[in-house]
């Protein structure tokens, strides 16, 4: 009756993820945007004030939040009305059971607009109005997708229609850290040999009236001297043993993913004497790419 061990669960999650990707790459996406037009205020993996967003935050003060697919309301609660006195940082929210074992959470709806009495719903049926109930920086809806079979959160951009986005992510800097010191490449061009942690400052531009925090990209790749050192794909997140980890293939605990300066912590490597070429490639969910190459002289 206990949950599956983490490793096996992640394999299952990866399998379902492939299914989801196949579904999303077809002519029709699995789900529709719950709030149109979609203006992303946070993407899956966005870090904001000590939390990581495990969904997409869609910004709007107007319109209607609609069911993204046929389904059934499994749980709904208005902000401040939990009988156990449990606060709800998700504000007024609803959990809807959709197809293929997927449940979606529609959060931060305007209080008093949540459809609490409906059960069976069709795609496009109203669930409430966008709002700012709970712990959120602006008005809109936080849309999260939970894969019940794998017990993991899935990046909604894998199951939603492509968003009109032609702006590639930005690579703001790459840094090496050791013994509490951080060296931003460009500011320094040479370093003594040793083991360094490589981190990168990457953001995806937002087209939204407000953002939770600089948006996370979809893929970050790091190559050192032509060999891929690490690859982060913001596909799923899964909790196990009291820790939450991102990425299906090589899970990284959320607490270890970002450096105190807000960069993505990528990999720790021994840099030996000589010339080293470090290449970063990033990609957003719409397929826009950006790459940057840094040359470092290790003394």
């Amino acid at each position: 009756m206990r949950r599956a061990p983490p490793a096996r669960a992640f394999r299952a999650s990866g399998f379902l993820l492939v299914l989801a990707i196949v579904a999303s790459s077809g002519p029709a996406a699995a789900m529709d945007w719950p709030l149109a037009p979609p203006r992303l205020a946070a993407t899956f993996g966005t870090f904001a004030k000590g939390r990581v967003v495990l969904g997409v935050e869609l910004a709007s003060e107007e319109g209607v939040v609609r069911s993204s697919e046929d389904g059934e309301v499994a749980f709904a609660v208005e902000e401040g009305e939990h009988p156990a006195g449990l606060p709800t940082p998700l504000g007024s929210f609803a959990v809807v059971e959709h197809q293929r074992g997927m449940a979606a959470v529609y959060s931060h709806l305007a209080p008093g607009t949540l459809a609490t009495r409906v059960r069976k719903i069709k795609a496009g049926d109203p669930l409430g109005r966008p709002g700012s109930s709970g712990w959120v920086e602006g008005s809109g809806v936080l849309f999260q997708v939970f894969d019940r079979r794998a017990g993991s959160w899935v990046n909604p951009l894998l199951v939603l229609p492509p968003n009109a986005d032609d702006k590639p992510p930005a690579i703001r800097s790459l840094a090496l850290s050791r013994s509490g010191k951080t060296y931003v490449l460009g500011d320094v061009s040479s370093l003594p040999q040793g083991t360094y942690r490589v981190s990168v400052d990457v953001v995806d531009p937002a087209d939204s009236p407000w953002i939770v925090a600089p948006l996370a990209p979809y893929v970050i790749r790091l190559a050192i001297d032509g060999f891929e050192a690490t690859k982060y794909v913001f596909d799923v997140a899964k909790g196990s043993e009291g820790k939450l980890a991102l990425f299906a293939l090589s899970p990284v605990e959320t607490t270890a993913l970002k450096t105190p300066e807000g960069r993505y912590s990528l990999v720790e490597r021994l840099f030996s004497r000589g010339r080293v070429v470090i290449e970063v490639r990033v990609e957003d969910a719409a397929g826009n790419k950006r790459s940057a190459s840094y040359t470092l002289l290790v003394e």
Partner: protein
Amino acid sequence: MEEIGRKRVAMAGVVVAGLAYFLVCAVPLQKELLLVPAWSRDISPVIPSGMAGASAEGAAQSAASKPAAPKAANAVPVALPAAASQANTSLATASPLPFRLGDRFGYFTADGSILFVETVSYGVALAPDVFATYDSLSEGFAIRSPSGAEVSRVSAPGYPFFAAGRRFLIGPDQATVTELAGNGSAAWTYQFPSIVTAFDASPSLAVFGLMDGTIVGFNRSGAVALDFAPGGSRIAGVYGVAASPDGLLVAAITGADKQRLVILEKRSTAYRVAYHRYLASDYRRPVSMAFTEDGQRLAYESPAGIGIYDRATHGESVVPVPATPRMGQTARGGELMVFLSGKGDQKRLICTAAPDRRVVDLSLNAKRAFVLTKGNTLFLGLDDRIVRMDLEER
């Protein structure tokens, strides 16, 4: 003549037998349980927390000017005392009692002193010993004593909630829970795999119900004492949980289509299913449930009313009134269960004796209300007033 004599003898015999019956078999009338109003206080004016106790005099005057206590069908009407001269001496008069009524919160004491009344800006966590107010984008807050003094400061995003003498923080993702130490630091933190939908705590066990249908319990040190997914329903979910005060029983309403009442009991080191039953309900919202203070009975929300589960007999009964938050309160040493039921402007105070005999059914006119029990005393919050009523046998 002989016939008349026999009739007289027979009549005299009947009279003697009747007298003998009344004299020998007479049973004194059962004492009636009465709700006796003790005091009433107006809480409409804001009294800042820094002025603890300063309002007692004014409150007493207010009580004297507004003596209209709610009328119980079986209560003896008595004049309200101007001060707390009839205070139940078994109550610690100085121990503060927290309250929240609509957007007002504060503390009062059993003798009728209003320690303070403030307005909730966004949220407030209340406990008898501490409280914390917080904003919607809270990244930290102060934990204060009822006197307003800062006890500790928490620097972390999320909302606080207090229960059973324990202090918790739920993160903005509604999936990360931290138990706070006395100094406001994190005693332990746990990131759940899905969002938290239900909660209850006892001094030894904190129980969380999750959207994915799992029930997770933590002991005082933050170690996982219970991790269980009841299953058995088409849709997984946990709609309510309750922990008995001794931490040995955990009850939950789980799943949808069909919904179940599951009761787990700690045997040696692990929790096992002690009782379960499919319910007629199919709630898709959090439901109210709680154990009584003595842990002997569980009150839970059901379509037929308030369901009562008896720990000793595993028997169930129903009090046919709508359930409300803060169930599981008892009076007279657990003899009576006390509920505040109803919606809108109409509320009912109901006291039941086991299993479901209603001994008090009092109609109240109040939009916002609460009931708090301490021994033989009931404190009723009714919109802008707090009323103390003592249960007495007469």
